[in-house]
């Protein structure tokens, strides 16, 4: 059980790293949203399921309920993250932010 939890946690951290570096390196606002979205969904999916699994270590009803609550956090993040990204892009487009085209300098 511990091995699975460790592997899942490290995979989650790997995607968190990818997301964080991606946010820094991408040239434009719109392209930076892509790793930001990946960070929220995939990174937290793996990390939160790892923690939920670890919680079932010494099994009892209490830990089961807590694990279910942790999974609920995951479901909420899955609902909230795309909506937040959509709201940001909508605000960016209305404010007249031009998308980056190839060959332009980094913005």
């Amino acid at each position, binding site marked *: 059980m511990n091995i699975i939890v460790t592997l899942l946690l490290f995979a989650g951290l790997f995607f968190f790293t990818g997301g964080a570096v991606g946010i820094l390196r991408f040239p434009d606002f719109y392209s930076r949203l892509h790793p930001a979205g990946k960070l929220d969904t995939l990174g937290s999916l793996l990390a939160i399921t790892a923690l939920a699994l670890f919680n079932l270590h010494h099994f009892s009803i209490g830990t089961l309920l807590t694990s279910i609550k942790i999974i609920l956090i995951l479901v909420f993040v899955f609902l909230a993250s795309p909506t937040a990204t959509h*709201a940001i892009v909508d605000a960016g487009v209305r404010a007249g932010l031009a998308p980056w085209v190839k060959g332009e300098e980094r913005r």
Partner: protein
Amino acid sequence: MDNIFLYSGLYLAFLMVLSLYRALFGPTVMDRMIGVNAIGSKTAVLLILIGLLYHRVDMFVDIALAYAMLNFIAVLAASRYFQKRKGLYDESPYR
């Protein structure tokens, strides 16, 4: 197992500093919101990790859930506020 959680928590905190850079120096306001959103989602995971470290998971799970919700509402409110302001960026050939 606690050591693994401790070090992954520290590593998550380091990743937060990385996205803090984007929140500080982001050219446009929208980049700052990406940074804040990224930090918010990392904090939720970090809270559960801390809960596991302190062996009081059920308390920290509620805090993490509340934090995830607040982060979501804050991003919505901020993006609703910023879309009215024209000229977020000096030249906007798009519009």
